[in-house]
C-alpha cells in the first residue's frame, strides 16, 4: 500500500486528508509541523509527502528543502497545499524542490484525483 505523509497544523485538515486518502487505499502518516515531519521522514521513507505551507516550528517550504537533501527522498513527489492568494509560494516551493501543489480550498475528490495522478 503506497504511504503518504500528510503534514498540517490544522487538525480538521489532517482529519479530512487522512480520511480521504485512507478511503482511497493509501496508508497515511501524519505530522503536525515541518519539524515533526522531517523527523518522521528520517525514520522511514514514504511514497509521497503532502504538506501545508504555514506551520509553526518549520514551514512547508523549509520542509521540502530539507527533504530534498535526503538521499531517500530524491524523486519522491513532494506536494504543497497552497492558497490561491499566494501564487509566489508556488515558485518558492518549486525552487525549494517541490514537485507540485494542490490549491486550497480543495474537495476530497480533487485531492484524491491529484494523488492518484502522481502515484499512478
Amino acid at each position, binding site marked *: 500500500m503506497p504511504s503518504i505523509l500528510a503534514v498540517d*497544523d*490544522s*487538525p*480538521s*485538515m489532517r*482529519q*479530512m486528508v487522512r*480520511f*480521504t486518502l485512507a*478511503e*482511497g487505499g493509501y496508508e497515511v502518516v501524519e505530522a503536525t509541523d515541518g519539524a515533526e515531519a522531517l523527523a518522521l521522514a528520517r525514520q522511514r521513507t514514504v511514497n509521497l509527502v503532502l504538506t501545508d505551507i*504555514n*506551520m*509553526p516550528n518549520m514551514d512547508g517550504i523549509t520542509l521540502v528543502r530539507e527533504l*530534498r537533501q535526503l538521499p531517500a527522498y*530524491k*524523486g*519522491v*513527489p*513532494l506536494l504543497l*497545499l497552497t*492558497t*490561491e*492568494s499566494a*501564487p509566489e509560494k*508556488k*515558485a518558492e516551493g*518549486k525552487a525549494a*524542490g*517541490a*514537485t*507540485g*501543489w*494542490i*490549491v*486550497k*480550498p*480543495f*474537495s*476530497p*475528490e*480533487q485531492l*484524491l*484525483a*491529484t494523488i492518484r*495522478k*502522481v502515484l*499512478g
Partner: protein
Amino acid sequence: MATDLSRFRQTFIDESRDGLDAMEAGLLGLERGQADADTINAIFRAAHSIKGGAGTFGFGTIAAFTHRVETLLDEVRAGSRAATAELIAALLAAVDVLRGLIDGAAAGASDDPSACVDVAARLQALLDRQPAVAGPAVPAGPADTAPAGWRIRFAPQPEMVAGGNDPVRLLRELATLGEATVVADRSRLPALEALDPEALHLAWTVTLTGPAATREAILAVFEWVEGECELDVAPLEARRDAVSPASAAPAPTAPPAAGGGGPPAPAVGRGAAAPVPGDATSLRVSTAQLDELGNLVGELVITQSMLGQIGRDFEPRRLEQLLSGLAQLERNTRELQESVMRIRMVPISFAFNRFPRMVHDISARLGKKVHLRVTGEGTELDKTVIEKIGDPLVHLVRNALDHGIEPPEERRAAGKPEEATLTLAACHRGGEIVVEIADDGRGIARERVRAKAVERGIIAADAALSDEQVLDLIWHPGFSTASEVSDLSGRGVGMDVVRRNIQALGGGVELRSREGAGTAVAIRLPLTLAILDGQLARLGAQVFVVPLVSIVESLKIDPGQLGELAGRAQVYRLRSDYIPVLRAADAFGIPASAGSAGGMLMVVESDGRRAGIVVDELLAQQQVVIKSLEANFRAVPGLSGATILGDGTVALILDVPGLIGMTHRGGDGSRHGHPRDGLAVAA
C-alpha cells in the same frame, strides 16, 4: 466518491475557536508593542488556517471575510504595512465577527453575510488606503477556440525527475485529453559510459487531437514543471514557430479542474452551510489518553475473565487466587477511575482566556491603564468547575477594573505608576486549587463600606466592628459598594452571589484589602466535583456522608458541655470556645433514634466558621461518587448531593458550608446572613 465534509466541521469549529483566541492574544500583544516575527506569524497562521478550512468545509462567508483579514496580516508580516492602533482595533473587531460566524456555524445556522458587513467595510477601507501587494491572480484570459489539434514539444531539463515529476505521468495525463501520438527524441542521450541514471535525457513531441484538448488543459498538465522544461504548444495548422527557451506557458493561472488544482481565484462556495451537529459539551482528548484508557479496559477484561474462571469451578483452596483477583480488580478500577478523571481535567486557561480582551476593552472604556498579568494558566481543574467559575471570575475582574483600579491621574497623585497591575493567578494548594484576582488599586475604603452598611440597615450606626468584620459586610446579600450603578459592574449581582456560586462548587472565597494598596480575592476550588473523600455517619436509620475535608475533629458528646443560647440555639463548649450545634436528625426530620442519649459531635469548618453536627454513630471513611440531587430529584437545602453505597443504598451528602451558614444565621442574627433558606436549625 463523494465525501460528506460535515463530519470534519466540528473539528474545524473547535480549532477555529482556538485560532481566534490565539489571534486575539497575539493582537493584544502587538498592541503592547510586542511586534516580533513570532507573534505576527502566529496571528497570520491562525487567520490563514481559518480561511483555508472555511473554504474547504463550505463556510463561504467566513472564508471571504477572513481573506481580507489575512491579506492585511500578510502585509504586516511582509513589513509593507504598519501595525497601527487603528489596524489592530479593526482586526480585533474582525475576531469578534468571526467568533459570531463560527458560533453560527456551530449552531447550524446558514451563513449570514450581513453580520460582517460593517467590519468587512472597515477592513476594506484599510486595504484600499495603502495599496500594497497586488491581490490574487487574475483569472485566466479568454479561452482559445479549439483548433483541430496540437503539436506539443516537451523537453524536460535533466534534473526534472529528481523533483518528483515523472515524465511518463505527464505524457499519460496528456493522453487523457484526447488521441495522442508520442514520438520520443533521443538525440540528447549520451553514450552509455557518460549516462547519469538519475538524469533525464529524453524529449518528446506529442500530437494531440480531441475536443477536451484546449490550450488551458494542456498547459495545466505541465503546470508543475513550468520552468523545468522547454514547452511549446502549437495548433496543428500553424507552423511551429516559437520555441521558448525557458517556458512557453503564459503567466501562471489557476489550473482547470483537470490540472488537479482547485477552482480558480477566491473560490468560496456561497451555499448555505449544512446543519452541524451542535455539541457545545465536547471535550478534546489526546490519543495518548485514549490509548491509556484502552489499555486499562483491556486489563479489566483480563481480570474479569480470570475471576470468571475462578468462579466457574470454585474450590475453597482457590480462595487465595480469588482474593488476589479481587485485589487486581480493585486496582484496575481505581486506575480506570483516575484515568477517566484525568480526562475531565482541563487547564484553567480555558477560563482565563477571555480576560486579556475584556481587560483591554473595559480599561480603554474607563480611561484606565491596566496591565494584566496571568500566572499558572496551565493549572488543571475539572471541566465542570472551569465552566462554573467563569461568571464569578468575570464579576471579580470587573469589580477590580471598575472600583479597585484608579484613573491614571489619581494613581500618579498617590505616587503609584500610572499603569495598574491586575493579576490572575492559579495554583495548587493541598488538595485544592486557589485562584487569585488581585489589583494594586485603591483598596476597599472601610468607612464607605461601614456607611453603606448602616444606610442599608445591615448594622447599627454604633456597632463596634473589627476591620475584618467590616470587610466581611461586602459578602452580605444586597450589599453593593458602587455608589452609582455603572454599566460595568452594577448589574444587580452582588458579591454574595459570587460567594454562593463558589460555595455551590464546594469552594470558598477570601478577601484581603489594604486601603491605598489594593485588593485580592482568593477563590479556593476543589480539584474535582465528581469524587469525594467522605466520612460515613449514621443518623437514626439513615447513613449520611460528610466531606472529609470539612471535618476538623469528632468527639463523644459530653452532655455537661452543651448549653442553650438565647433560648433557641444550642452551643457546645469546645475547650475554650463555644460552637453552634446542629442536630442534623431534627433538621432533616429524622425520627429520634435510640442512641440519642449519647452520640457523636462532628466538628466541621467552612470559611473559618465552625459548627458541631450531632450524629448517632461514625461509620467508615471512603471515596464516594457524587450524584446530583438536582438532576435526579430536586435541590434540598443542607444537602449537596447523594451517592450510592457498596450495598446499593442511597446516602445523602451533607452540604457543610450551607449548614454552617444556617446555624450562624439561626444563632447570631443577621450579621453573617447566608442566602440559603430552609430548615429550622438546632433543637
